[in-house]
């Protein structure tokens, strides 16, 4: 048994960590946080040059053709660094949707542009409050044009193209949903930036008015493709969350070692030690669940739906837990703008919602476990 990353993959992790430590310091993250730019363009360019944007894109389409385990490794480092770039929207959502359902021409058009950093993509799924469900989709597609409003769309204000979920039938069933690709620079859309919990990752409202769109995958297959995309993205986001959890835990640990109160290191008080020990427990459970998700993703195993839901829940909980208690360990200083703790707190809580909230994934997990038990 080798339930671990290979030496090559670990080397890739070291390489990514070194790169991000240099190019994605907390100062760089703050530039985006403070609204100086919508995302870190220099970093995005660098990620393309390193081959990280196309790590799981086949060589035929301009990628490195490495695979999803390598992408998991990069994802963890992106989460650790709190990278202020549209990585998850472009790489986990848009690129994966294209890989699953794109025609050869669509893949040729968009995947090399993603790998080279020229195109930013996203998934336009949500329409106001509520979790992923075919019932919530009102945006219509007819005669090759889309009409409706999507909100929130992650990185929608900086995206060049979007994969859009649209209604192509009048019932409330899965088969009435189809996917489309929209070139957001070609007109027919109005994009409005929305203030959100985590300013280092933009959110937008996109209004489609007789907007030209191209089908992605077969008509009526939209929901089935989306489910697969969300499962893959759940595993990849889980690695970002694991990276973020580890970093928040380290920050808390380091502060507990440095800070003296009542004449001793605060890390010598059991109340603080036990809080940090519990953070370690959450982070470890999340990592192990995510490894299982990575295995299922990379082997395209039948276990992927269950593994993805478990990784999603566990990693979401861990990141929220570690980010919140990192502030608690820091005390008052943790609640200042100046300290970096709140950047992880914001990211943790924004990420907890992006692919559907915990209650959605809890439901998914139980359904999938029941299905497995019945089989």
């Amino acid at each position, binding site marked *: 048994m*080798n339930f671990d990353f290979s030496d090559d993959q670990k080397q890739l992790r070291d390489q990514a960590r070194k790169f991000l430590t240099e190019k994605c310091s907390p100062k760089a993250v703050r530039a985006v946080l403070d609204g100086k730019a919508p995302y870190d363009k220099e970093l995005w360019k660098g990620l393309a040059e390193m081959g990280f944007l196309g790590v799981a894109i086949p060589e035929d389409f301009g990628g490195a053709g490495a695979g999803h385990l390598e992408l998991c490794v990069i994802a963890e480092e992106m989460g650790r660094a709190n990278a202020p770039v549209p990585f998850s929207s472009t790489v986990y959502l848009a690129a994966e949707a294209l890989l699953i359902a794109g025609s050869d021409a669509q893949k040729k058009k968009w995947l090399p542009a993603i790998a080279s950093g020229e195109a930013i993509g996203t998934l336009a799924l949500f329409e106001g409050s509520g979790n992923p469900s075919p019932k919530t989709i009102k945006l219509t597609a007819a005669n090759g044009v889309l009409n409706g409003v999507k909100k929130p769309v992650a990185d929608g204000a900086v995206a060049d193209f979007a994969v859009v979920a649209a209604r192509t039938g009048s019932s409330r069933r899965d088969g009435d949903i189809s996917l489309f690709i929209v070139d957001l620079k070609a007109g027919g859309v109005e994009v409005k930036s929305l203030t959100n919990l985590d300013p280092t990752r933009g959110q937008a409202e996109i209004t489609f008015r007789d907007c030209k769109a191209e089908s992605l995958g077969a008509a009526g297959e939209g929901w089935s493709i989306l489910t697969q995309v969300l499962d893959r993205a759940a595993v990849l986001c889980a690695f970002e969350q694991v990276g973020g959890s580890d970093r928040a835990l380290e920050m808390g640990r380091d502060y507990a070692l440095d800070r003296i109160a009542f004449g001793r290191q605060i890390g010598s008080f059991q109340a603080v030690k036990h809080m940090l020990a519990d953070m370690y427990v959450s982070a470890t459970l999340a990592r192990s669940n995510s490894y299982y998700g990575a295995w299922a993703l990379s082997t395209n195993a039948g276990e992927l739906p269950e593994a993805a839901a478990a990784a999603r829940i566990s990693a979401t909980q861990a990141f929220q837990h570690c980010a919140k208690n990192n502030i608690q360990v820091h005390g008052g200083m943790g609640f200042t703008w100046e300290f970096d703790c709140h950047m992880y707190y914001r990211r943790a809580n924004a990420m907890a919602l992006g692919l559907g909230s915990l209650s959605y994934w809890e439901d998914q997990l139980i359904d999938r476990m029941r299905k497995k038990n019945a089989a």
Partner: protein
Amino acid sequence: MNFDDTPQEAAFRETARAWIAANAPKQYEDELRKSSLGRTQLKNANILEVAKGWQKKKAGAGWACLHWPKEYGGRGSSPIERVIWQQEEGPFGQLSRMFIIGHGMCGPTMMAFAREEHKRAYLPPLASGEKVWCQLFSEPAGGSDVAGLRTRAEKDGDEWIINGQKIWTSGAHCSDYGILLTRTDPTVPKHKGLTMFFLDMKSPGVEVRPIKQASGASDFNEVYFTNVRIPDHQRLGEVGDGWNVSLTTLMNERSAIGAAVSTGFPELFEYCSSLMLNDGPAIEDRAVRSKLANWAVKASGLKYTSMRAISALSKGERPGPENSIGKLVAGSMIQDVATYALDLQGASGVISGPEDAEVAGRFQAMLLRAPGTRVEGGTDEIMRNIIAERVLGLPGDIRVDKDVPFNKIPTKGR
């Protein structure tokens, strides 16, 4: 990343599987599979005898204490082979529970510190289950603070005379031998005045009294020592070095990798899958699903954490510190799971008799046994200290009694 055996591992698994299929006491398989925390009895047989029989059979064919050297009754197997054996032994592994202390703690301590002739004499019958061992560390005055123990050992010629009391001794009532931590010098700080021995539990002056637990069952005992004589050659380690010797023992207690920890989750999921609530099936209830999902990811998280440690063993590496979370997570989880199962039963959850209770009272038994799991082998709080100090590198507790002679440490809070 894969879950596949290497060719050698696969061959070993095949051999183990074939031997188990041909030899295991299959008539008990179903009952053992259905056993859960607080409920590991056999209806029509004495589990102690069945366990001893299975252990003896295993030893006869070289399947006992796999990782021990052959000359001491083991098989000389690699750590990964031991894990594969446990996986294959499955429910029959439940029968090894009464040997856990002897095989997991006493054996390794004897191996590290006993004289060669003692090792050859005592270890093989320990491995084969013929002789049962217990561990005599905890005392009324020293639980988490084991080094605070007061049982005295005084030298008398070539012998030591033991007086005092131990408590929480698992299986002492059916043990033949025990390893015993004593205080040989009360005038030095507490960690420095301890010495370890092994002794015959049938020695004159040893009295074992079962403790009736909060659950009503009796797994533990008090053991009294009145002028018990132990020959000096049964000393383990140097005089005054007992603390270091005990660390070897305790390290083994907490590092049993691959040993499945009980979380109660499979039992709860199975129960909820068929349970009907007033408004329909429990498994379709939003609140029930949320609870189940949260425990599901803890259970799977522990399972895959253990897989990571096993992978390290498979590669011949030392597993990382991840495995230290197992007992801490599982202990409080099984208590919560049992509490919730009873909550779902409503008022009838109060019925615990196996004949009248829901699912034969398995969750009631689990609930009553669960508090013990959060205490034995290191309390939740001690486990958190261990993670904080050894894994995260946080400072140890400030120990106010560290440099004080033992006999000057206060013994009363108020």
